[in-house]
């Protein structure tokens, strides 16, 4: 079974600064996808960014980028120019690309990020 570990239960960052959230995962698969989801106090689950394991290039989405280290099974999220609206729980998630249990998400426990004015 796949496991996803987020080792930072809580983090804080000053507005306009940069913060990096950590995520590691354990799998024997070669075909998989990784995601970061954001859950603000409103409870919505919002997709932030997606990475295909077969792609070497790190995904970016505006102020959000990832550092995907496949050999190390690491998938960290960098938020640049942090904004107050970035305050939320951030979940790292793993998805198998094929075989039994594919296409379902396995989530980490989350990191609570607070952006301080």
């Amino acid at each position, binding site marked *: 079974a796949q496991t996803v570990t987020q080792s930072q239960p809580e983090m804080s960052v000053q507005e306009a600064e940069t913060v990096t959230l950590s995520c590691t995962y354990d799998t024997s698969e070669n075909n998989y*996808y990784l*995601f970061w*989801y954001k859950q603000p106090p*409103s*409870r*919505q*689950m*919002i*997709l932030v960014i*997606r990475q295909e394991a077969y792609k070497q290039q790190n995904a970016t989405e505006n102020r959000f980028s990832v550092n995907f280290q496949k050999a190390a099974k690491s998938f960290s999220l960098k938020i640049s120019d942090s904004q107050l609206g970035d305050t939320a729980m951030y*979940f790292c998630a793993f*998805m198998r*690309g094929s075989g039994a*249990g*594919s*296409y*379902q*998400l*396995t*989530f*980490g*426990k*989350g990191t609570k990020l607070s952006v301080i004015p």
Partner: protein
Amino acid sequence: DARVTQTPRHKVTEMGQEVTMRCQPILGHNTVFWYRQTMMQGLELLAYFRNRAPLDDSGMPKDRFSAEMPDATLATLKIQPSEPRDSAVYFCASGEQGNQPQHFGDGTRLSIL
């Protein structure tokens, strides 16, 4: 923007009562997932469907939970009888194809007294 719609948004009921949660996936999405979120366990997959067929419900307590898709626009999750330990936020998510990102509804916050 198309959205996954879940009803009700909140539900409070007494233990032993039947609870039904509904989900309307995004039109055209052929995979539907049910997740449960609690403080202790985080987000857990309960069940998922592809083209309305159940593919995996191993995360769901079979004796009291059931999930169905009577048609492509409706997924339901039922708990009968409900217990206080079922109190959680239940999310429905849908996806366009297997490996595409899942889009989540706003969740149903369930409280069993």
